[in-house]
């Protein structure tokens, strides 16, 4: 998804993961309308949708391992979640996920001691242990240098492909969109103004779309 700020990209992602309730119409997420769902059924659907939020929404006071394990709270019973805060559970999976984002050596660090880019990678690692069918990413590359941005987007796409699902990302950089996505949707003021496979687009098309040379 591309579009100027205020176009409705984050709102659209929020509609999909249930953070925003539609005021009109309905949403189909993985074949189900979440609106009538309650309790356990809703949680089961939400556990299948993973989100990298724009402001990350990590808990700074927790160690990295707990923030990554939070990806499994949809499937863990409350007792196990509580015990894990005392004695971290499922450490091998956490370490494997952190290794994929190059952060294995910081697993027991407090999250608020990490830099912005490192926190972004913690958020990605949380998704790696959640193993969702649908991956949503709101500006996942905003705090990363170009090489890391490529790597993170690659990982997210890989993750979605492993589960047979899709990656939906909002991006500010047309080059990234062209490299990592198969389809580009342009939003302006809440309306779809562009919907094309990447192969039919050039960087020039998107540059005019953003209205500024990049």
């Amino acid at each position: 998804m591309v579009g100027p700020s205020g176009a409705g990209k984050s709102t659209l992602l929020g509609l999909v993961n249930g953070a925003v309730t539609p005021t009109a119409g309905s949403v189909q997420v993985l074949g189900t309308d979440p609106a009538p769902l309650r309790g356990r059924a809703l949680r089961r659907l939400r556990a299948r949708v993973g989100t990298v939020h724009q402001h990350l929404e990590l808990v700074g006071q927790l160690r990295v391992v707990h923030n990554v394990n939070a990806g499994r709270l949809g499937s863990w019973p409350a007792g196990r979640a509580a015990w894990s805060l005392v004695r971290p559970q499922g450490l091998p999976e956490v370490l494997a996920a952190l290794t994929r984002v190059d952060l294995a050596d910081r697993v027991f660090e407090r999250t608020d001691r990490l830099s912005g880019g490192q926190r972004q990678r913690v958020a990605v690692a949380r998704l790696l242990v959640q193993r969702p069918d649908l991956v949503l990413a709101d500006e996942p590359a905003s705090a990363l240098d170009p090489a890391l941005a490529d790597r993170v987007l690659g990982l997210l796409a890989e993750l979605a492909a492993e589960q047979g699902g899709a990656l939906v990302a909002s991006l500010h950089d047309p080059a990234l969109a062209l490299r990592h996505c198969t389809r580009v949707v342009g939003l302006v003021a809440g309306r779809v103004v562009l919907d094309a496979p990447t192969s039919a687009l050039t960087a020039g098309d998107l540059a005019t779309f953003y209205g500024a040379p990049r």
Partner: protein
Amino acid sequence: MTAVRDAPPATPPRLHRVRARWAWGLGAVAVVVWSLAGAGLFTGDVVNPAGRAQFGRFAGSALSPALDPAFLQVLASSALITVAYAVLGAALAVLLGALGAVLVARTTWGRRRLGWTLARGALAVPRGLHEAVWGLLLVNVLGLDPWVGVLAIGLPYGAVTAKVFADLLDEVPRGSHDALLAAGSGRVAAVLYGLLPPASGGLLSYACYRLECAVRSAVVLGLIGAGGLGYQLSLSFSSLRWEQVWSCVYALAALCALADVGGRAVRRRLAAPRTPGDRLARDRGLTAAVLTTLALVAWSWWYLAISPATLFAERTREQLAYVLGAAWPPDTDGVLLSSIAALAVDTVQMSVIAIAVATVGAVALAGLAAHPAGHAGPGRRLTGTAVRVALLLLRAVPPPVWALVVLFVLLPGVLPGAVALGVYTWGVLGRLAAEATEELDPRPRAALAALGAGPAAGWLYGVLPRATGPVLAFALYRWEVAIRDSVLVGLLGAGGLGALLAAGWARSTGPR
């Protein structure tokens, strides 16, 4: 060597526990156990089987408070006296607090640490004395005059308010203030434009909280004779008229709730004022709130018939000189000192049990008592309201009155005092903890909910780690207050209301 970027490290890093934190935790548990042992929980009889029937009668009257017109009239005029004391006391406190905050804020002193430390130290003296003790001291100086009640609330509250106001101002992010200074504005202007607006919500919220506290303090002062609801409560209690006691408790709770709801409404308006963006206009609600406050202060002044002349009378000056002269040197008699030391241990144990009870209870209820961030079902909202009302009732009854209630079921000693203080502090701390929870950024928890975490797991991972710091800080602050209040429980339990105890149980000597 090949690229090993994706291989897991040979030895995974080790989990280092924060030793200091565990040591503090275990130490706290040890102190609580020591206090419980000192209160005789593990050794002696603590339950008073004889009092159960009396407690039953007391509890049974909860649903049938006295509502006859004559008593209601008495109740109304007592409530007005309490309100007048509370309003004037709180107004004086906020005035003194605002002036004092300028004197003790970091912003004023800058790098001059010595002056700052001395100013802070000077504030600790009026803060250290309980309102009731201030009341007794001031009666000696001013005689029976309404000023006693107003000053007994206003002076210690003013000192606390000054400290808190100063802290609030110092904690505001200083970026915009420093930018103004760098752009050449004066110090006062920089504070007005860069510090006061971001701090105003906190300042106002604290002022409202002080008003609610002032209502409770006015009641306690009533217990020692200043009149109002507290006096009425003690009269009804000592004549064993439980229906009247409950009427007083409900009136008190209503007053506290009124202060609470009013403060909340003003804060909400201040955060999002209803003003048009295209022209200069004041928010009507806020204007009305300011005018109401001024009117209330003026009315209280008139209703209590306060005259400034008393403060400057010749007799006042003489009495003040006498009391100050007696304050130094303190009595250093050996027997007295050793009995004071023993009682000090009792006081500490009482306050430790109280704060332990209160903290556990407050943490357990904080989640339910907090207003939910998003939309909530009717069941959740109903539970929330019920919990908030319960907490309000707990803190509406002053600790000495709780002590009398607890004495129905427990034998006199440290324990009933501790339970009374704990129950009261639970009400206060529960509200503070709920507010701390509400003020957290809701997004991390929402993110957990979005990935399917249940309510318990969301609370454990999204709220608990972030709320621990503020709630612990509140608990430590309330512990300080509890130590002061435990002195009061002893003061009143053994003295003013002792007649009831003597009539009720031969073994009673009142909680120490």
